[in-house]
C-alpha cells in the first residue's frame, strides 16, 4: 500500500511534466500540423534558465521572501523567457518554411532541436548541473502512516493540475479558445471567419513553451540534476502522451500525460525500471491498434 501510494505520487509528478510538455506539442500540432521536435529542447532550456536565475538572479527574492520566493521568481522568469524563445523559434525556423508543406517543417524542427540542445551544451557545458540545494524548498507532509509527500512534489502536482484546469477553461470555454480550436480544425475557414491566425500562432508558441519551461524548472527542483539533452526523453514521452490522448486535442494531452506517468511509475515500482520505456511504447502501440486516433478523439471519416 505504501509502495503503491509512493508510486502514485511519483507517477503523478512525472505525469504532470509529461502533460505540461504534451500541451505544447498538441497545441502546435493542432494549428500547424507540425511535430515540434524543438519543444522538448525548449523544456530543457527552461530548466536551465530557472537554474541560472536561482544561482545568480534570485538571491534578493530568496532573501526577502524565503526559498519559495526564489522559486516563484525562477518559475515566472523561465516561463516568460521561454515563451519569447518559442516566439523566436516560430519566427526563425517555422514561419519561412510554413508554405513549403509539412515535411520540410519537420526537418526544420529537427534542425532547431539539434541547434537548441547544442547551444545549451555550449553555454552550460556538457555535464550535469545541480540545482543549488539552498534554493530547493525542503520539508514534507505526512499523508498517512509512513507515506509522505515533499512540499516540492505537492506544489508541482497542484500547480500543474491548476494550470491544466486553466488551459482547459481557456481552450474549451472562452471565445478565444474556440478560435484556437477552430484554427486547428480548419485554418482557412477560420481565417475567413475573421480569426487572426497569426495571433493564434503567437498564443500557441508562447503558452506551449512557457508551460514546458514551468515543467522544466519543477523537474529541476524535484530531481535536482539536469543535463543538456534532458528534453529528448521528456519530449519523446510527452509527444507519446499527446498521441495517446489524440493529437491536436488539449484535454487529451493532459490525460495522456498523467496516464503515461502513472503507468510508467507503477511498472517501474512493481516490475522493472530498465524495461519501463519498452512497456510505455508497447502500451502505446496496443492502444493505437485498438483506437487508431488516440484515446480521446472522435472518429473522423475522410470525405471521399
Amino acid at each position, binding site marked *: 500500500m505504501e509502495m503503491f501510494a509512493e508510486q502514485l505520487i511519483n507517477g503523478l509528478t512525472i505525469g504532470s511534466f509529461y502533460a505540461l510538455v504534451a500541451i505544447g506539442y498538441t497545441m502546435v500540432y493542432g494549428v500547424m500540423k507540425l511535430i515540434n*521536435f524543438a519543444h522538448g529542447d525548449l523544456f530543457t532550456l527552461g530548466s536551465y534558465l530557472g537554474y541560472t536565475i536561482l544561482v545568480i538572479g534570485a538571491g534578493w527574492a530568496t532573501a526577502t521572501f524565503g526559498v519559495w520566493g526564489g522559486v516563484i521568481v525562477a518559475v515566472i522568469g523561465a516561463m516568460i523567457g521561454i515563451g519569447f524563445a518559442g516566439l523566436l523559434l516560430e519566427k526563425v525556423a517555422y514561419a519561412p518554411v510554413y508554405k513549403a508543406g509539412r515535411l520540410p517543417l519537420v526537418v*526544420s524542427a*529537427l534542425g532547431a532541436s539539434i541547434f537548441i540542445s547544442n547551444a545549451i*551544451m555550449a553555454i552550460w557545458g556538457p555535464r550535469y548541473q545541480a540545482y543549488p540545494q539552498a534554493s530547493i524548498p525542503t520539508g514534507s507532509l505526512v499523508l498517512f502512516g509512513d507515506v509522505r509527500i515533499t512540499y516540492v512534489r505537492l506544489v508541482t502536482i497542484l500547480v500543474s493540475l491548476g494550470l491544466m484546469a486553466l488551459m482547459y477553461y481557456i481552450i474549451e470555454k472562452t471565445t478565444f479558445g474556440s478560435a484556437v480550436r477552430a484554427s486547428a480544425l480548419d485554418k482557412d475557414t477560420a481565417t475567413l471567419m475573421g480569426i487572426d491566425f497569426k495571433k493564434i500562432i503567437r498564443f500557441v508558441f508562447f503558452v506551449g513553451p512557457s508551460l514546458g519551461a514551468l515543467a522544466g524548472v519543477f523537474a529541476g527542483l524535484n530531481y535536482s540534476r539536469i543535463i543538456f539533452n534532458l528534453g529528448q526523453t521528456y519530449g519523446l514521452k510527452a509527444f507519446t502522451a499527446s498521441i495517446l490522448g489524440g493529437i491536436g486535442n488539449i484535454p487529451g494531452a493532459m490525460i495522456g500525460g498523467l496516464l503515461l506517468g502513472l503507468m510508467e511509475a507503477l511498472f517501474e515500482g512493481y516490475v522493472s525500471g*530498465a524495461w519501463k520505456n519498452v512497456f510505455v511504447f508497447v502500451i502505446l502501440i496496443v492502444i*493505437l491498434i485498438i483506437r487508431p486516433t488516440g484515446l480521446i478523439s472522435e472518429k473522423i471519416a475522410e470525405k*471521399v
Partner: protein
Amino acid sequence: MSNFTRTITDRINKFQGARATIFKNKRQRRILLIVLIGLMLVFPFLPFVSNYWLDVGFFVGIYVLLGLSLNIVLGEVGLFNLGQAGFYAIGAYTTGILYTQLNIPIVLLLPISAIVAGAVAYLTVSPIIHLKGDYLCIVTIGIGEIIRITANNNPFGLTNGPNGITGIGNPDFGLFSIRTSTQFFYYVWIIIALVIVALINLQKSRIGRAWNYIREDEIAAESNGIDVRHYKLLAFLIGTALAGVAGNIYGSKMMIISPDNFTFMESCLIFAIVLLGGLGSIPGNVLGAAIIVIFPEIFREFASYRMLFFGAALVVMMVFRPGGILPRRRSQAGFSGLGIANLPTDENQYIENIVAQGSVAQRTGAPSQAVHPESVPSGEKRRVLETQQVTINFGGLIAVNKFDLNVREGEITALIGPNGAGKTTLFNGITGIYPPTKGRIIFMDEDITALKPHKIIAKGIARTFQNIRLFPSLTCIENVMSSPHYHATAGPWESIVHTSRQRKEEHLILETAVYRLHQIGLWEYRNELAKNLPYGKQKLLEIARALASSPKLLILDEPSSGLNDKESEALIEFLLKLKTEGFPLLLIEHDMNVVMGTSDRITVMDMGSKIAEDVPSRIYNDPKVIEAYLGKEE
C-alpha cells in the same frame, strides 16, 4: 475542332520541341555521372586523401545506404518512419551476435541481417500499417526505442548491454578479405552501386509507381487497383532489409557496436538525409548523406560547436530549398523517365500504331462484347450491377436506405437527386470505400458486397470521384498508368531485374494508358504534372484513368461539374461514344442537359431512398421527382 479530334501533327510538333531539351539534359547528366564514378574510383589514390578521409567516404556510404533504405518508405510511399535506426541496429546486432556466438562468416551474415531486419519490420509493422501519418510516425519511434532499449538491457546475455558487442570480424571472401580503409571504401560503394541500380529499376516499374500512387492519394490508389496495405508493407520490408545491410557493413568495419550507435537522433539524421536530398530522389539521397556526414567533419576544429552549426544549417536549408537539393523531376524526363525498355524513339509513330490497333481491350477481346442496345427491350437486358436493399449508416444517420439500383447491359444509367441525398455514399458503398451496413451488391452475377476497393476494380468496376482525386505530382501518363496496374503480375524480383515478361507487361500498361489518354484528348499533356492541368482537363484525366482499367462498368461521379457548356457538350459526345464501345455507365449528374442527353434510364434518390426509376421522358414529369427537387406545391 473538338478536343477529341485535334490533329496529331500539332501535338508532334510540340513534342519534338520538348525532346531537344531532354536530350541535352540527359547527355549532360550522363557525362556528370561518368565523371563522378571516375572520381570515386580514383578517390583513394588522390594525393591529399588520407585514411581519415577514406573513412569519411565509408561513412558517407553507410548513410547513403540508410538514406536509400528510408527513402523507399518515406520518399516513395510517404510514410513517416522515425525508427529506421532500430532496424539498422537489428542488422548490426544480428551480425554481431551470430558472428561472435556461432562464428558464421560476415559475408554470409549480410543477407541474413537483411532478412532478419525485414522480418522484424514486417511482424511489428503489419498490425499498425493502417495508422495515419503521425500516429504511424510515433509507433515507428516507439519500435526504434524498444529495439534500442532491448539491446541495452542485455536479454539472455546476448547483446552485452550498454557496452555492446566487440570483436566482430571483417568480411572475408575466401582468399580475399576486406580490412583496410581503402578496401572498405570500395566495398561499401560497390554495394551502393548495386543497390542503386536495383532501386532505380524498382522505381521505374509498376511497384515503384504503386508506391508513388499511395503517397499521392491513398484512396485514389486503392480505388485504382493498388493493394495499399500490401505495397506499404512491401516498402517497409525492402527498406528495413536495406537498413539491415547497412548494419552488417557498419558492424564489420567498426568491429564494435553498442546501443548508443542507434539512438532516436540517428533516425532523425536519416530522416533529414531523405528530406535534404529531395523525396524519392536517389541522387539527392547520395548528396544528402554526403552533407550530413561531411559537414560536421569540416567543422571538426570547432569541436562542440559543430552540431550547433549543423542544426542551424538544416533550418537554413529548409528555408531556402524546402523541396530538397536535387528533387526528382518527372515532367522533364518524358516517356524515357518511365524506364520502359525498347520504346520507339519516335513517339509520333508510337501513338499512330496504338490508335490504329485500337484499345488493348479490343485487341485482346477482353471485357464487354459490343452490344446493340436498341435491339433488346430494356427490361429484358441483363443486369450488370444490382444493389439489393443496400443500407449505409454513419452512426445514427441513415445515408442510404434499402436502395435498389440497377444498371443494365449497354445502357447509361443516371442516378440523380438533390444534394445530400446519398448518391455519392451509394457509389462509395458499391466501390468498397464504405462497406454497406446491410444489403448486397451483385455485379455480373457475383456478390461483391464489402470487397476492398482494389478488388472491386479488378472485378471490372472503375470510378471517378466527385472531388477530383488524381495523383497531383505525377505526370498525366503516369496517372493513367495506375489503373492497368492490377492486370500485371510482376513482383519485386521481376521488377528489379526487368525480366522480359515484366517488360511485356509494362509495354501493355503504357499502351493502354496512351490509348486512353489520346482518346480523351489529353495526349499533348502526357508529360505534364496532373496538378498543372486546368480543372476541366483534370476531370477528363480522371475518366481516362478509369477507362484504362478496361472496366466492364464505369461509374462517374458528377463528370460535368465545373465544366463549361462547350466542355460538357464534348463530354456528352464522348460518353455516347463510350456507350457504343459497349461500356455500361452509371453516373451521378446534376446537369440536366447531360442527364437527358445521355441516359437511357434514370433512378432518383432522395433522403437515401429511391423515389423513382424510369426512362428520362417519364422521370421528367414525375410529380414525386419534381417535389423532391422543388418542394411540394401548397
